[in-house]
């Protein structure tokens, strides 16, 4: 996937965690150190003004990518490049603060991410003061009001405390706070997962409107493929720390390549009630501490062979700017085998 003028590029990005037992226990049981590869050599980029969504099952590393991107974690390997600036390179304090201001993060839980003892006004004024965006109190108050109105709350709501708001309204407050430092890029980690569907629709509509009005770019994490279909321009599918498929979202939804992507799309509940026939999904998500050898997906994959058990697949770039990590795709045997399986399951 090569994109002209990306706002964000990550390359070879990894985060490994040491999850070893305490030293004494390791000595007694003769265990070695254990490393968990929460994110393993991930590469993607996001163009200005667009949304890339990461999807995948619990524990596959989505939130860890988000934290790496906003600098809450140091990468184990690789780099994060924001608007041409390598975030790991030496920057003066001032440069760094300037870069940091330009991207913000929104979390899943709007209850935990707002300080309950602060009035909404102060919650939103804080980043304005911290980044020196305005110093004069009149100007600060004008900006707080403006950001509250942007998220369809009123300036008077500034006087209240977070507990006086519903879940959806609190998520609006988090968005208003994130917008207060006038960022260009928002990292959103499951921003609507804790909300009811009718409230989720309000927030998704709001986020799309804001993107259009302010030219924002999003890294939008979700496990809900229908939400992703609605919001994303680009899609990345993760499995046990690896990005197994990434590219334009519509392309992937229409014509998924990686066997895991196919399985995920097949598992989406059929709300249309078309009664479409699907290839049944089997197996469990393995433990990320001791993932299967070779291609992590091989125990669940109907197309796995001996090579898949042995060797981790590299990246194959397909037409339409889609990157896939799968031997069967690389060897060009996947399409034929999918067809065979379809025939078998419809015959059965």
């Amino acid at each position, binding site marked *: 996937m090569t994109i002209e003028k990306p706002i964000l590029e990550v390359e070879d990005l990894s985060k490994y965690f040491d999850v070893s037992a305490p030293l004494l226990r390791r000595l007694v049981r003769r265990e070695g150190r254990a490393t968990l590869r929460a994110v393993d050599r991930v590469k993607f980029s996001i163009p200005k003004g667009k949304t890339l969504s990461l999807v995948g099952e619990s524990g596959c590393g989505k939130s860890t990518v988000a934290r790496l991107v906003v600098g809450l974690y140091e990468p184990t390997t690789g780099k994060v490049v924001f608007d041409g600036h390598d975030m790991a390179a030496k920057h003066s304090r001032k440069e760094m603060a300037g870069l940091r201001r330009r991207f913000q993060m929104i979390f899943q839980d709007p209850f935990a991410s707002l300080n309950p003892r602060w009035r909404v006004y102060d919650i939103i004024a804080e980043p304005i003061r911290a980044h020196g965006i305005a110093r004069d109190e009149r100007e600060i108050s004008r900006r707080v009001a403006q950001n509250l109105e942007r998220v369809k709350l009123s300036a008077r709501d500034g006087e209240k405390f977070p507990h006086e708001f519903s879940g959806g309204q609190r998520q609006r407050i988090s968005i208003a706070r994130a917008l207060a430092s006038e960022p260009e890029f928002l990292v959103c980690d499951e921003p609507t997962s804790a909300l009811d*569907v009718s409230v989720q629709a*309000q927030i998704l509509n709001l986020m799309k409107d804001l993107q259009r009005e302010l030219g924002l770019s999003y890294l939008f994490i979700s496990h809900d493929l229908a939400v992703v279909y609605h919001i994303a321009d680009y899609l990345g599918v993760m499995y046990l720390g690896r990005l197994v498929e990434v590219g334009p979202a519509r392309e992937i939804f229409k014509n998924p390549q990686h066997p895991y992507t196919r399985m995920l799309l097949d598992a989406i509940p059929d709300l249309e009630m078309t009664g479409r026939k699907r290839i049944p*999904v089997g197996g469990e998500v393995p433990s990320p501490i001791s993932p299967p050898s070779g291609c992590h997906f091989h125990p669940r994959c109907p197309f796995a062979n001996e090579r898949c058990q042995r060797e981790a697949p590299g990246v194959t770039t397909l037409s339409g700017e889609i990157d896939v990590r799968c031997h069967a795709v690389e060897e060009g045997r996947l399409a034929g085998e999918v067809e065979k399986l379809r025939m078998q399951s419809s015959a059965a």
Partner: protein
Amino acid sequence: MSNKKPVLEVRNLRVEFPNRRGNLVAVDDVSFTVNEGEVLGVVGESGAGKSMTGSAVIGLLEPPGRIAGGEVLLDGERIDNLSPEAMRRVRGKRIGMVFQDPLTSLNPLYTVGRQLTETIQTHQNVSDSQARKQAIDLLAEVGIPAPEKRIDQYPHQFSGGMRQRVVIALALCVNPRMIIADEPTTALDVSIQAQIIKLLKRLCEDHGAAVMLITHDMGVIAETADRVAVMYAGRIAEIGPVKDVIKNAKHPYTKGLMGSIPVVGHDLERLSQIEGSMPRLTEIPRGCAFNPRCPEVFDRCRVERPDLIDVGTSRAACWLHDPASAKKTEAAE
């Protein structure tokens, strides 16, 4: 509707939570039936009263919550007025329960096999080895691979999806007349969710049990339920065959809810949205509880509370479907 026998009948159920300022009504005048071999889906947004309805049916309301009115019948016999001891026996023998977090239903200190065999033996007079064999068969039935090995493991050695299968196996030990599943797939990953849904559906068909499936996920309902009850602010807003409720909703709330769910393959710039959010129990508006959010609200909605009204094969609690209000709006025009 089918001519199958009703297993569960709930009539005018009312659940209250007494507090200092009076009574909070969490479930208000709720009636429905679930037939043999049928899955009734109960959907609604959080706080709608789904779980309270389920808990009231199985006699597991947390005090101070209490049934303040109505009747619950299992196979034609009232069970809402039984002593706690008698109700415990009914639950053990005739009702299976599956909750969101499988760990709440499993004892971490016992092997999966011990929990299954103990349950089997409290209800059937069978030898240890027979009980063990039944337990292995049940684990196989719910799709646990290598059940003869897995049976001697502890719950923490199972993944989330497998634990939920064990809970379902436990619910089946007694060959229940009805199964109540409250958000059984909410904590699971999508690929595992699909497996559990299929399992519940198959078991309902094979065992002829009645299933009450409580969830906030319309997708799960579309895949599993025969009929659906949509709850809003403690009441049933609409109830009917799943196809009608999903594709041809009669209540403005159901319509709004369906429109607000994103769907893969639907290219929309914006989702249709219902303004506002569900009222708290202390702030339920007069008249129709949905009236402040309803795009079709008219005068009568702010004064009178609608009961369920027949509309084709469904029933909806909405004045739009009352012939009398139709006349009135015509007259006004």
